């Protein structure tokens, strides 16, 4: 049996489901193959960690009391909101703005948000949409954090794909790169539009969707080049 076949048997090897006649050749190969050896160690680690997990997790005794108390606090907060001071009403937004600032400072991938702020300062631009479909500061916070996560994950997946590229046919690599370029162009176009119209919630959702598609395509390709 060669490496390619044995890769498909490693899970059964680790869980002890291979019969003796297959187990011997697989064990011999693992002893000589660094890639399969590492895969087996990884699988064993996952099994060991899974075995350490509790069969069930009981919530702490005070959980329900805390949940009930939190609901009551929310009810009171809603009731008191009518009389809240201007400063109180803006507190969530101030918190959101602080988180946005932290996210912006923590990543070089947030030119989008900086651009959107510049665009917002352009007095010739129509006022941002203030209807219910407009993006709130919280939406922008969520998106900025989400975008940073996407960019990190994309970098990891890109690194993985670069290492696996030799396993794919050249024409498939070319096709994959063309698809990723198509996605990147769409992301760039949507980002530029969002910079001009930062309150457009739909643009944010579309951009998130396109990022998700890019990650999904990269993840699927990475999985295709692995064993079963």
């Amino acid at each position, binding site marked *: 049996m060669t490496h390619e076949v044995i890769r*498909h048997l490693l899970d059964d090897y680790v869980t002890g489901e291979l019969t003796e006649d297959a187990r011997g050749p697989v064990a011999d190969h693992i002893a000589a193959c660094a890639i399969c050896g590492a895969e087996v160690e990884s699988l064993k680690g996952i099994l060991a960690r899974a075995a350490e997990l509790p069969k069930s997790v009981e919530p702490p005794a005070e959980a329900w009391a805390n949940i009930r108390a939190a609901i009551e606090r929310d009810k009171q907060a809603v009731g008191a909101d009518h009389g809240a001071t201007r400063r109180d009403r803006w507190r969530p937004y101030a918190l959101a703005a602080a988180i946005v600032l932290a996210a912006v400072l923590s990543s070089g991938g947030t030119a989008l948000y900086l651009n959107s702020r510049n665009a917002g300062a352009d007095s010739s631009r129509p006022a941002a949409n203030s209807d219910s479909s407009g993006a709130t500061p919280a939406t922008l916070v969520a998106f900025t954090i989400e975008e940073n996560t996407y960019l990190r994950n994309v970098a990891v997946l890109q690194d993985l794909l670069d290492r696996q590229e030799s396993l794919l046919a050249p024409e498939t690599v070319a096709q994959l790169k063309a698809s990723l370029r198509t996605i990147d162009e769409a992301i760039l176009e949507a980002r530029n539009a969002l910079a001009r119209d930062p309150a457009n919630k739909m643009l944010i959702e*579309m951009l998130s969707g396109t990022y998700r598609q890019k990650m999904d*395509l990269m993840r699927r390709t990475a999985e295709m080049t692995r064993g079963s």
Partner: protein
Amino acid sequence: MGAAAILFVASPAVAQKKVDRKLPLGMEGAIRIVNMVGTVVVHGWNKDTVMVRGTLGVGDSFFMGGGYTGVKMFVESANERDPKPARLEVWVPARVRLWVKTATASIDVSGVDGGLDLYVVSGTIDVTGNPHELNAEAIDGDIHITGSPPWVRAKSASGTIIFRGASSDAAFSTVSGAVKVDGGVFERSKIETVTGNISFSGLLDRSGSFDFDTHSGIIDIAIPDKTPASFSVVSIAGPITNNLSRNSPIPGRFGRGAELTMDASGGGAKVSVRTFKGPVTLRRTK
């Protein structure tokens, strides 16, 4: 596979050109097939047996093993850098859970009612029948589905997805490949592309939800006249053509694009269409 009862019996067939093997497999067992190049044709049948026939490249080997709950089969190429095509025709119990993975080999499945997980890089996936679950993924291969799987997911990057049938829960996704849906009743569907065109012609369940998203693909939605549905169509920079009712789209923000919100026949199915710049057409089924 995971079943403790699995017995693996590897039987390399050195320089064997033909494959003709059988193994018992429960009617609701599981089967995994890996064949990188060539074809994999799978038929469902009413026997608790897996039978495989086919041909291999010279020097290639075929492995098949398992027990009554699960079977695996692989083709091993003599030269992994230049694998030769292997043609496998497999008969499986109709309610089996089937998993097939290939690189450039095409996959053709018919008459399997259990769950299907099908993966190709650049081969074509063809499915005919009514599997209760169907997940088909390609990188640049086409996916063709004819039938009524209650749950279906199909993804490709540059390949085309063509679905003919009905489903209560369908989702299709491509980058530049076109998505064409033509069929019966849908309860819930989500179709998304980046630049690929979307063409949908079907019946909308009154309580269903239907999402269409693209960056720049053309969206063409055709439904029967008097279908009760609530539409929300938004385009950042593309035109909207409504041939379903007299409602006219209104200009989008900054004078670009368009928006259309309307209830047809009193409203019902929730239809959401979002595009960056692809043109959208709503029309009646011809």
